[in-house]
């Protein structure tokens, strides 16, 4: 028998603290596979953010910094400027990146920092128990929108990928999803591309990933995958919004 699927080597053996069925775990694995395939574990430096993925450093066998809430792109900037030859990636949630860390994400992109951001959009604050995120859908109930998010009071979901694609400094901007195998495969391809572009010095790359939060959505893990497809994808179209080859797509 030949092993055809195994835990990536760049990942540790620790059982994650993520809830059952949370797709954070899938995103982790895709990053791990990418690091393995590109053979860059020895020169990769990860930046963990504050959110459910705060302990990401426990799961990757590469150097890591734990950043303050929202500031991972600034921390990554500091690292990359000191070690331009290293591969630096941040792993951030939507509260972290699209709310408190909006400025840091946008300005890292504006500067064309040669880093990669893995952006987990689960339309909610997972770690703090299910508050509204800027990415929360209209009508979606959270602990801070108990009647569902209403446009009149809290506006409409922010689309980070589309926004970042307007910046000349951004080289690669894509959004994919983790809700089924074909999409996971595409997500993996995008993550690998983003790291590859970084290796080539192309500049700022970001992959937004639609992800689940069964716990705070109040759904089973399988219902959650379904909801990504039926509801989230309507608001968050998938695809590449900007590539170094072609520039912004519309």
């Amino acid at each position: 028998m030949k092993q055809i699927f195994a835990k990536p080597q760049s990942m540790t053996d620790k059982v994650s603290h993520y809830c059952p069925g949370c797709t954070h775990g899938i995103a982790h694995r895709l990053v791990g596979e990418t690091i393995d395939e590109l053979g860059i574990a020895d020169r990769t430096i990860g930046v963990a953010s504050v959110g459910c993925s705060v302990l990401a450093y426990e799961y990757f066998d590469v150097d890591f910094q734990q950043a303050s809430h929202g500031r991972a792109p600034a921390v990554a900037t500091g690292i990359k400027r000191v070690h331009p030859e290293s591969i630096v990636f941040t792993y951030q949630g939507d509260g972290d990146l699209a709310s408190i860390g909006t400025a840091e994400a946008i300005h890292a992109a504006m500067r064309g920092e040669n880093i990669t951001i893995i952006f987990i959009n689960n339309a909610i604050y997972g770690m703090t128990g299910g508050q509204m995120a800027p990415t929360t859908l209209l009508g979606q109930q959270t602990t801070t929108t108990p009647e569902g998010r209403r446009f009149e009071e809290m506006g409409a979901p922010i689309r980070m990928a589309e926004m970042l694609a307007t910046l000349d400094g951004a080289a690669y901007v894509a959004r994919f999803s983790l809700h089924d195998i074909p999409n996971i495969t595409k997500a993996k391809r995008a993550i690998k591309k983003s790291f590859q572009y970084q290796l080539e010095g192309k500049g700022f790359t970001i992959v937004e990933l639609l992800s689940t939060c069964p716990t705070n959505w109040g759904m089973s893990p399988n219902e959650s995958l379904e909801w990504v497809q039926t509801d989230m994808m309507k608001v968050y179209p998938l695809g590449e919004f900007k590539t170094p080859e072609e520039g912004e797509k519309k």
Partner: protein
Amino acid sequence: MTYEILIAGFGGQGVMSMGMLLTYAGMLEGKYVSWIPSYGPEQRGGTANCAVVISDEEIGSPVVTEPTIAVIMNLPSLDKFEPTVSSGGKIFVNSSLIAKDVSRSDLLITKVPANDIAGELGADRIANMVMLGAVLAETRVVSEESIIESLKAVLPPHRHNLIPLNRDALERGKALVLAKE
């Protein structure tokens, strides 16, 4: 009389609500009460515990460091809290999930196969109420009636249909202790 109660288990085992019901019931009975939760980093799963104080006197410290009653729902909690129980205290162990024995000899030990009994009642989630029944029977910290009253107050009206099931679970836990006596 002051009861210092610690309840611990996996997140999702109803550890917190056991504590809340005791607290509420204590208040209904005119006692001084306090409830303090403690969570791990996990949103779901992981360990969780809560500390309840029910007393005839004003409560100084609501923090429980040496419980007089410990309710242990899973193995990691047994390992963590067994050493802290006050000598002469009572320890309740969910024997459905904990094969290991309590090693201390200065405690009154009650084993409750809470998940098994809950399974028999057709609702895994009710294991905590089975356990609670046993605790009430053994300690008499509050009455079963007060717990039922508390349930009514805590559950939203459209969930009141669950009360009979909860009462059954309490009874089963109680019966276990009484049988032992």
